[in-house]
């Protein structure tokens, strides 16, 4: 009998404090054989469990092209994330995954890619960015727009710096008005406004967008105005999940189970769904 709910054990090899309430874990699967055969695709998620407190769902933030380490980032909100925060390097957590579908990167080769992320929403997008950067020659222009509430809420600052230094990537970082500090050199303004100002060309471009619901809500009209097709706008939905296996019914909206049929949807698919996310 196979127990689909049984997690792998994973060791926390490194903890990075991103913001006061966001952390990044680097994980190593303990079972050497599992670790060897483990593979996933950009956009998939996993269940991270603290024994005694339960499991929580986050995307895998590292790129599948860099398979030796699994990374995840989370913001402390509920019971499990609070328990995760208390853990130290060397501790063991449960890891179930990878689950769900992925961004169709293979099919989109030869196109320009526009990444738009807000707050902790950079985590799933980061996985795709790294993946695309590793396959750099297959894609044309790469643009990254990232915004957060304030400078201290920016996650992956080391990554942002890395991307900004790349000559073949255009990186725009913005903070909400009022969130800037004295030495802030990036943009000030909400993500939709910044995208509008930037006006990336829609032709032969796909947009990968992830962030708080309100950001997505206002950015999509901007993209539509710029001429993006529904099928070229991708996002990942974040519904509450428990099993990740399409059983527990929590993430069911319309005819889909977000954990199985998602979490990656293009805007055309999203329009078909009832608005329950």
């Amino acid at each position: 009998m196979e127990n689909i709910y049984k997690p792998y054990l994973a060791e926390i090899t490194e903890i990075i404090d991103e913001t006061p309430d966001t952390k990044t874990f680097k994980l190593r699967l303990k079972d050497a054989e599992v670790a060897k055969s483990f593979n996933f695709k950009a956009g998939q998620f996993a269940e991270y469990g603290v024994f005694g407190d339960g499991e929580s769902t986050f995307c895998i933030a590292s790129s599948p092209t860099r398979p030796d380490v699994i990374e995840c980032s989370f913001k402390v909100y509920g019971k499990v994330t609070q328990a995760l925060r208390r853990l130290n390097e060397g501790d063991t957590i449960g890891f179930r995954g990878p689950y769900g579908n992925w961004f169709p990167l293979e099919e989109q080769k030869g196109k320009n890619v526009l990444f738009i992320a807000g707050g902790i929403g950079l985590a799933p997008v980061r996985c795709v960015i790294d993946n695309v950067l590793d396959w750099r020659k297959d894609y044309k222009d790469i643009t990254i727009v990232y915004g957060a509430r304030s400078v201290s809420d920016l996650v992956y600052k080391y990554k942002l710096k890395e991307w900004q230094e790349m000559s073949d990537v255009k990186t725009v970082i913005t903070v909400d008005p009022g969130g800037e500090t004295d030495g802030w050199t990036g943009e000030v303004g909400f993500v939709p406004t910044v995208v509008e100002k930037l006006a990336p060309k829609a032709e032969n471009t796909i947009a990968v967008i992830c962030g708080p619901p309100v950001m997505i809500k206002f950015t999509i009209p901007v993209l539509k105005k710029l001429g993006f097709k529904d099928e070229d706008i991708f996002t990942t939905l974040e519904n509450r999940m428990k099993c990740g296996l399409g059983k527990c019914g929590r993430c069911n909206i319309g005819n889909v189970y977000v954990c199985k049929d998602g979490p990656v949807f293009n805007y055309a698919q999203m329009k078909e769904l009832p608005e329950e996310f």
Partner: protein
Amino acid sequence: MDEKIISKQNLVNFCKDIVANGHNLLAPGKTEYNLIQDPSEIVLDTKSKPTKASYKTFVFPKAEPILYYKRGKNDVVMLDAKVDEKKTVIFGAKPCDTNSFNILNKIFNWDYKDDFYNERVKNFIVIGLMCEYSDRYCFCTSVGSSPVSEKGSDLFLVPIDENNYAVRIVTDKGKEFIGAYSKYFTEGAPEKSKAAEEKVKQPEVAFDSKQVHEWLGKNFEHPKWDGVGDLCLSCAQCAFVCPVCHCFDLVDEDYSYTEGRRMKNWDGCQFGHFTLHASGHNPRDIQGKRYRQRINHKFKYYVDKFDEILCTGCGRCSRGCAVSIDIKEIVANCTD
């Protein structure tokens, strides 16, 4: 399809043998299906009211450990939970109950396979019984079943006269099972059971499920949902007594400082916190939306995805509802 005949007395002997062989024997009581120690207590009554709770708890328990763990300083060991492999025979189940496994099999076996469920079903023998009960809440005929439906049964009993039952052998599993008890069975007379079946009064067809499906597709936003939502009290009685509702929750609970288990518990979509995100955002924040999800999931989404209506028409949810919300009435009104 094979058919045999068994006398009432032999039926009791048959049950006694089942218990003597160390199998679990379940039969409907007033509230739930009970584990039977003394088979002479079993009353087989086609006119009895359905139990308040369905028997899904025996294949999909209300609380079930899926994993045990022990924590060390920074290490964890895990132990798989196992499923009791005892054979379970359910005796005298109503056709509206027996159909449930066909429907549940789909959700527990699409893509990933939930072996906790599968192992239990594998060890399950369902002996159905024709039903002559019908009240205002019954609507099995509206969802493609009937009081004489053999769907989901391994063996199906039809009373042909005062002292004898016709036993229809529906599946190979059923055939194999009664092989060991063949001494109790005599050759059957299908025409008698046919005649008995024809006499059964069928509940009226309350709605056309295809039309309902179509209507639901067009009326996601409808004032009706808020109307029901105002009356519904947001308990999960309807989901928990339902033979096919299958949503669950995974929770960890500690047994001591270092040991604990991960449980799979029933959960219900009518609870406000079912979809509540940790951030405080709730996609289904009011009861009307949750009730809409319940109806849509049963009569639309599940049909689209698995080609089965997620409902057996047993009417339990309506019968037990504290504020008398009648699913049959609501679904029947899902037409233009």
